[in-house]
């Protein structure tokens, strides 16, 4: 902290606020998820570029080992000669950047009876001071000493037995540690929490569902009420806000120029929208918060009264356009939104996938979707006992036009690079289903590709015109993130196992490498000693193989894995 102001651009072991805020510009480090808290995933590095990328070769590879593999969705962090990378089952490794040798490993002891909805993934850690901090599947935060891997502090965020979990990378904003929570359909209510990153002490907590009380905490940990989120019963009928959902399971981004942290919120509960008429704030939204107090400064709701599982957790990435600071979000629901980062006012919204059945567009005046009522699934509490309801075809499918895989933005090309998927789903009310030993009124659904030849497509999206400038199709659904560089390149991985580099302006494929298992994680890049490196984690898993449907045919030949690969130019 003392060194913070002077240490800008220096590489002491201690990570300061100034270093975190400068992460996107400092090419020697990757200190945060998103390669900078704004989440642009852009590096100005250009040693590896359209002319040289063909000479990219492996520098080293490291296996996460263990008997358990499953989805590896983690983004590595780079600092002080070390890589910090998390792996499935709440593991974290520190690796020597030069040799690829393991320095230390932390394996979190997971209790039996945790309930992660969508695989045992982790998306990465945060660096602060001498610590590396990450969230675990049993809803704890663990801070380890970067040098030794010893636990410095450990805090329980919530009760895993009640369905809470943590998979996102924590965020450092204005010197506080911001985290969300994951949770399935079990009455979990989303919230954002701030802690002192050095001690884990709770500073404030802000629920994301209208009606719940927020708190701040004094030195002794006593909770002091800081007012209710929104207005009780304004957009939720009766008691339904109590189990409102809106989990903040993907974490958030932070823009030092606006001073705001941006968190996406999950879909509302219960799944059946007919039981909760109203907008159901702040579910399926982007919520902008003051990191110091947790006050909600603005919100923009992408899918009011969601009926399709269109979780709004996707990242809000700030960027400059026409001299203004805006934010882009590629939502599950198939629309790409451009919103004023200072006040939440909608600037532009347009589809980034080919088929959308739930709304014909977004009204730029009101900011609200133009719903297509025929596209809304039926009410499972209506109809005769033991009868199957009529089927509705909805697109995108519940896994979304874009899921957890982060997009990238290049200030050089002024384009977003969005890993998108083209799929839909049949939804109908089952005659009867069962849950926890008892009868239930559930919906049946089957997820279907929309086209024969591809599901995934990496798309270059122009936020100004709403045009798709180019696309690179992929047979299997894309599930890993994108990165873009000053070398006019876009890097991304595929479930088929490839890390690929494309020309950022044309989408032309210039290089690919088979990593040995599916890539469902975002790449990073940094430079050390005059050499630019690229790294990506490989290991097939995540939600797709768990849900399948007709999509399973396109992915069931893929094998699991768990490793991190590092590349550099041959001869470097």
């Amino acid at each position: 902290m003392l060194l913070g102001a002077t240490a800008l651009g220096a590489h002491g072991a201690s990570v300061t606020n100034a270093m975190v805020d400068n992460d996107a510009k400092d090419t020697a480090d990757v200190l945060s998820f998103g390669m900078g808290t704004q989440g642009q995933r852009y590096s100005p590095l250009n040693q590896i570029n359209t002319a040289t990328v063909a000479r990219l070769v492996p520098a080293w590879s490291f296996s996460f080992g263990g008997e358990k593999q499953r989805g590896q969705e983690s983004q590595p962090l780079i600092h002080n000669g070390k890589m910090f990378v998390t792996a499935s089952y709440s593991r974290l490794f520190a690796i020597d950047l030069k040799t690829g040798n393991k320095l230390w490993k932390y394996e979190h002891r997971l209790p039996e009876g945790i309930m992660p909805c969508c695989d045992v993934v982790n998306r990465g850690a945060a660096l602060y001071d001498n610590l590396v901090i990450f969230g675990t599947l049993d809803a704890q935060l663990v801070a380890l000493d970067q040098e030794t891997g010893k636990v410095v502090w450990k805090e329980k965020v919530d009760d895993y037995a009640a369905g809470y979990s943590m998979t996102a990378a924590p965020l450092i904003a204005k010197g506080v540690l911001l985290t969300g929570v994951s949770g399935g359909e079990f009455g979990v209510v989303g919230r954002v929490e701030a802690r002192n990153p050095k001690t884990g002490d709770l500073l404030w907590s802000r629920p994301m569902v209208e009606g719940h009380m927020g708190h701040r905490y004094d030195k002794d940990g006593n909770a002091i009420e800081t007012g209710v989120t929104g207005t009780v019963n304004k957009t939720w009928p009766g008691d339904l806000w109590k189990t409102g959902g809106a989990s903040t399971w993907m974490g958030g981004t932070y823009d030092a120029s606006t001073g705001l942290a941006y968190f996406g919120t999950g879909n509302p509960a219960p799944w059946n929208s007919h039981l909760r008429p109203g907008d159901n704030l702040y579910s399926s939204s982007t919520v902008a918060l003051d990191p110091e107090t947790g006050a909600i400064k603005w919100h923009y709701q992408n899918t009011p009264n969601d009926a399709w599982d269109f979780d709004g957790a996707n990242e809000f990435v700030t960027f400059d356009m026409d001299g203004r600071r805006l934010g882009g979000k590629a939502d599950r629901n198939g629309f790409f939104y451009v919103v004023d980062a200072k006040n939440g006012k909608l600037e532009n919204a347009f589809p980034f996938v080919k088929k959308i059945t739930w709304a014909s567009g977004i009204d730029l005046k009101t900011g609200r979707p133009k719903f297509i009522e025929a596209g809304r699934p039926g009410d499972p509490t209506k109809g005769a006992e033991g009868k199957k309801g009529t089927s509705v075809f909805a697109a995108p499918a519940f896994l979304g036009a874009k899921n957890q895989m982060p997009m990238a933005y290049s200030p050089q090309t002024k384009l977003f690079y969005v890993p998108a998927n083209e799929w839909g789903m049949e939804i109908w009310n089952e005659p009867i289903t069962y849950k926890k030993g008892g009868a239930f009124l559930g919906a049946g659904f089957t997820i279907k590709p929309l086209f024969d030849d591809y599901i995934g497509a990496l798309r270059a999206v122009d936020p100004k015109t709403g045009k798709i400038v180019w696309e690179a199709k992929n047979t299997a659904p894309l599930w890993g993130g994108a990165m873009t560089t000053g070398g006019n390149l876009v890097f991304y991985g595929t479930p088929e196992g490839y890390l690929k580099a494309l020309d950022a302006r044309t989408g032309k494929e210039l290089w690919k490498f088979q990593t040995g298992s599916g890539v469902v994680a975002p790449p990073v890049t940094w430079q050390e000693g005059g050499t630019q490196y690229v790294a990506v984690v490989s290991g097939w898993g995540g939600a797709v193989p768990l849900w399948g449907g007709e999509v399973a045919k396109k992915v069931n030949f893929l094998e699991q894995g768990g490793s991190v690969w590092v590349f550099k130019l041959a001869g470097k």
Partner: protein
Amino acid sequence: MTMLVGLLALALPVRAEWQRISEAGSLKVAVYEGFAPFSDHGKGIDVALARALATRLGLKLNLLPFPAGENLNDDLRNMVWKGHYLGYGPADVMLHVPVDRALMAANDKVEIFAPYHVETVRLVRDAQAMPDFDGIASLAGRRIGVEQISIAAMVLLGEGGGRLRDGVRIFPTAAQALEELKAGGLDAVLANRSEIEAAVRGDPRYPLEPLAFERLPRNGWAIGMAVRKDDTELARRLQAALNELVASGELRDIFAAHGVTVARP
């Protein structure tokens, strides 16, 4: 898998599995967590039944309480035929599995059998707060407790386009809703009959009523157990043990000890 290879391979495990269990000397039984009066903190009807079954089979009980998944297919996969990817399970047998044709058809890797109880949804009311009762119409303007994400919650919230919705009070479990009813904070609770009986223990101040919601299974649903498809020897022995528990009155007593009247399928 080709069926031919499958059938040949099945000849072996039928007894092998039972042999493994009897040599180990214990029966691993999966029960739901947080599911009073059946299984909650190592106590309840299903826990007592698990113990009685193990005893009849000459085995020790090895209880595996687990959290409910999104649906029964997940539970059967995690607890019966495959195991959870976190490394726990499967058990030898899972209790409280609905004996339902559609569920059997959707889960060809398990054998669902031995129904031991029939569950139905009932309304329990505070007779003082609601002295007269005339079906669903009487619920207008009333405070009614339900367990979140239960069939009771869904039918009540959906009834008549939501005309009862504002009176519905949502609780994490039915047991908590019933506690609130007894504390005077609710007019009624809609829950499973077993949950209600265990809480009110025949107290005449809390009468039970059947209610005919549009999509509520009128005759309830039978619950039994599930083993892996090829564990026929184990299934045979469990069925025989259950038959003995029924014939001796032991099953009835297990239910009665928790205030519940067993309903035989």
